[in-house]
């Protein structure tokens, strides 16, 4: 999934139905979404959607131009993967009875995961980080047996660098 994905940071009006307009547009035009996170912004008239788009399913330029035609979409910025800091949160419950518990704890420490809950036969961990760190941890947890797993989808902001911000508006206002 890395490489051809694009991160769109989309400022939208905070009104009901906006999420379904955006999701409907993607479905209708055959654009694939890897992940989608919606959150309030510092201004309560607006929300921000962080959308990970599969760049293979459609040229990103078409995606942003079509998105821009939605009336509640205020502004779209595209973040190239290499110019962004991305983070994602994962909750995972694994099988970890008495004999596996210490091994699991050790692994959690390596990944700086937090232990949220412990039962007789299982344990729930929380880990935040780069998406590939989460992938790696998931792989290493497989042998324990994964009972349940949930990821938030990533959120992203532009990297702060010595150059001017890479957060750029990618499409002009549209008809």
């Amino acid at each position, binding site marked *: 999934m890395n490489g051809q994905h694009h991160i769109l940071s989309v400022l*939208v*009006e905070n009104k009901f*139905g906006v999420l*379904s*307009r955006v999701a*409907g547009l993607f479905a*209708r035009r055959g654009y694939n979404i890897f992940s989608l996170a919606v959150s309030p912004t510092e201004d309560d008239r607006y929300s921000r959607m962080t959308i990970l788009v599969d760049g293979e399913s459609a*040229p990103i*330029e*078409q995606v942003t*131009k*079509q998105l*821009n*035609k*939605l*009336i*509640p*979409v*205020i*502004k779209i910025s595209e973040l190239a993967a290499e110019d962004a800091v991305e983070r994602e949160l994962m909750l995972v419950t694994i099988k970890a009875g008495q004999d596996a518990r210490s091994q699991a704890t050790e692994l959690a420490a390596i990944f700086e995961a937090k232990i949220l809950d412990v039962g007789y036969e299982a344990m729930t961990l929380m880990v935040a980080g780069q998406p590939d760190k989460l992938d790696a941890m998931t792989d290493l947890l497989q042998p324990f047996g994964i009972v349940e797993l949930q990821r938030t989808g990533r959120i992203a902001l532009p990297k702060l660098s010595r150059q001017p911000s890479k957060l750029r508006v990618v*499409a*002009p*206002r*549209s*008809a």
Partner: protein
Amino acid sequence: MKLTGAQALIKSLEMEGTEVMFGLPGGAILPVYDPLIESSIRHILVRHEQGAGHMAEGYAHATGRPGVAMVTSGPAATNIVTPLCDAYLDSVPLVVITGQVPLKSIGTDAFQECDTVGITMPVTKHNWLVTDPQDIPRIVREAFHVAMTGRPGPVLVDVPKDVANQIMDWEWPDSVDLPGYKPNVKGHPKQIKDAARLMGEAKRPVIYAGGGMLKARAAEALRELAELTGIPVVTTLMARGVFPDRHELALGMPGMHGNYTAITALQRADLLIALGSRFDDRVTGKVDAFAPDAKIIHVDIDPAELGKVRRPDVPIVGDCRNVIERLVKVVETDRAKREWPDLTPWMAQVRGWQRDFPLQYEQLEDGPLKPQFCIEAICDHTPADTIVAAGVGQHQMWTSQHWRFDHPYTFVNSGGLGTMGFSIPAAIGAKVGRPERMVWSIDGDGCFQMTAQELVTASSERIPIKVGILNNAYLGMVRQWQELFYEERYSEVYLSPDLPDYVKWAEAMGCVGFRVDSPDEVVPTIEKANEIDDRPVVIDFRTDYREKVYPMVPAGASNDDVILGPEIGEGGR
């Protein structure tokens, strides 16, 4: 001033200049129909909500003003989905008001509840569910603004019954504030310069004018540009009339059933000046093989059209008229400074195609009646500014090919969606908007059976349209494909010429009905129809079912592989 939501809604429509609306009442919209009695707005009571939508479209096509329709919730809302989708694909400005169940009942599967906003989201430019009567004037104002500006399109306002009954404080907003909606009409000066530069280098340029040119009211600007540069013009199905067919630079319609010259001029061009057109598959044929040597200048008000199908060398986001008017100025200066290529050799080639591959059909004196002959006869025996509305099928293509369009806004048809049944209600809407014009519907027998009941509306409202049914007893266009591509295995396309009896049906609906079987009756019957001005007229033209639409580029084929059809006198021609 205290008003009910319903009163505020009607008043808002009046404030937006609505003179006519098309609709049919029902439970959820009842409150809004009450203040309509006192309103200055003329309401036309349709017989099916699809008719209301297409009438509003016909009205918008003919006048350039937004068409307004109002229907109730549930089944009425779903009945108007087809016109919404039709208007969406053809960029027709519509404002549709739907009733909705009371707010507190939404989501409970209440009687005649349907998720109208959800269903129509993909087929409207935008839609609104009103939750507070206080918002009605603002939403109506926004709705008209969105429908009419930028790339025009249909919008829908869903009004719950309780919201219509509640009391609000009337206040008309003095401006529209939509932070996420700012259409760009101007066109970038540098891009316009670049366009002029490409035009000044091209040896085989063609202007490829689309429906957006009519929306932008750019007919005059186009003529100026073409005459200034001597560049020939093709007009797509949606643009017929934007450039006069009688003009020496007019090449007519390109595409699947375009004429050979228009198709081939695009194929051989070294520059396409695409104005308000969208490289639709019905025009390009196989995209990879379309106009292979051409550079592209693409002007459109919708940025998403630029590069959607074909990457332009010079993309210009802007209103076609605005851009062309400025382009003309830049071109004038440029031509004063340097010599532009001589287009004589190119035009000689074009004239050669026109001479060698004209549209053709043959009407024998005692032979079966040819549909093309009927169309040409109607065109020749009506005023030049007559509005013609077509259905969808062979008769539509023949109308586009054989009618001579010399004025903009005289062709009303369903291009993008290809909606059978469009013609009759659209013709009614056009006549309502342009009562001083003669309005003809050229319809297929299949199409006629889909929406004919609106002739009852036309009779009772005294809307005297004329309908010519090209009755070939078949779903002709489908038959044509089965004949050509399915080894003449005809599956479910026969309709019968006599069932229904179109003359009796017309009479039952309050119209005058005529039947025409032979070529010599054609003109006298058209003349009789033209005399009648107090009710609709229907003529049942019994046409040759074997006639096919040529030229034809088979679906998915390259435009180089256009089929011209059999020679005259062969194969049923």
